[in-house]
């Protein structure tokens, strides 16, 4: 699976996938032709909430970015303005373990795009968190 998208230019400091952000997560995003955005990562220990548990807000952050990439059709995620995210947590996630992220568009009307996403522990496919997102695509006709 090839890497399609890493932030470059003005937002190269993005926390999630900015290549110049030395404290960032450096997430690499991929886009399938079926409209699904995918990513796989390990969250470092510096992003914990409680001991040995990744902060739920960091999981929300990763899910938000994957949903934005799906909303933008795997093109320029900078155009996807986040309006809402609704995240549910099902299981704690330990740091430095592989996490699989996926997102897809579930509805689109004009410039508004609704998405859903999930994060699973890769080793046993445990559902860690799921999310719904609402985005506004800049430059699209409402």
């Amino acid at each position, binding site marked *: 699976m090839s890497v399609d998208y890493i932030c470059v230019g003005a937002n190269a400091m993005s926390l999630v996938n900015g290549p110049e952000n030395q404290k960032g997560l450096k997430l690499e995003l991929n886009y399938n032709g079926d409209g699904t955005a995918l990513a796989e990562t390990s969250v470092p220990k*510096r992003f914990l909430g409680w001991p040995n548990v990744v902060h739920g*807000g960091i999981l929300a952050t990763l899910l938000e970015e994957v949903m934005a990439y799906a909303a933008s059709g795997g093109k320029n995620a900078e155009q996807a303005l986040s309006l809402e995210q609704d995240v549910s947590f099902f299981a704690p996630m330990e740091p430095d373990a592989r996490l699989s992220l996926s997102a897809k568009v579930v509805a689109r009307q004009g410039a508004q795009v609704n998405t859903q996403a999930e994060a699973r522990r890769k080793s046993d496919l445990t559902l860690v968190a799921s999310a719904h997102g609402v985005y506004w695509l800049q430059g699209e006709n409402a």
Partner: protein
Amino acid sequence: MNRPTPPNSQVCFICGPTHPDGLRLQINSTPDSDGDRAVIALPDFVAGRVVGSAHPGIVTCLLDDMISHVILDELKANGMTVNIKTSIHQPVPLNRALGLSVNIESVNGRKVVAMGEVRLKDERTILASGVGMFIIIKENLAS
């Protein structure tokens, strides 16, 4: 008044007081005159897609952490996030003082619902709001 960070939050990316790469959010046990329990200016490394703005997920991080601490302060209990819904009203700027407020809306058995807001501290413009549903997992903690 600032109060000590709970033992299980020492490593927290958001509020861990000695976390070398964290945000070191200090949360007060009582609201200030604006109703805020914390004030923070977010650093450049939590940037999002919009230039000069924080990542929307970091806004969720802040609200999630704040709700957890307010549950601890007011209910003397550890709460774990079940669900959190965040609305972004305007991009949340980096390097500007933000006021963070949280109020517990309901307690029903072990289920707690709380609402939070992120505002520009000086202008009081609302930037984001959120609703969190938490489940109490450990009660009767010492204050």
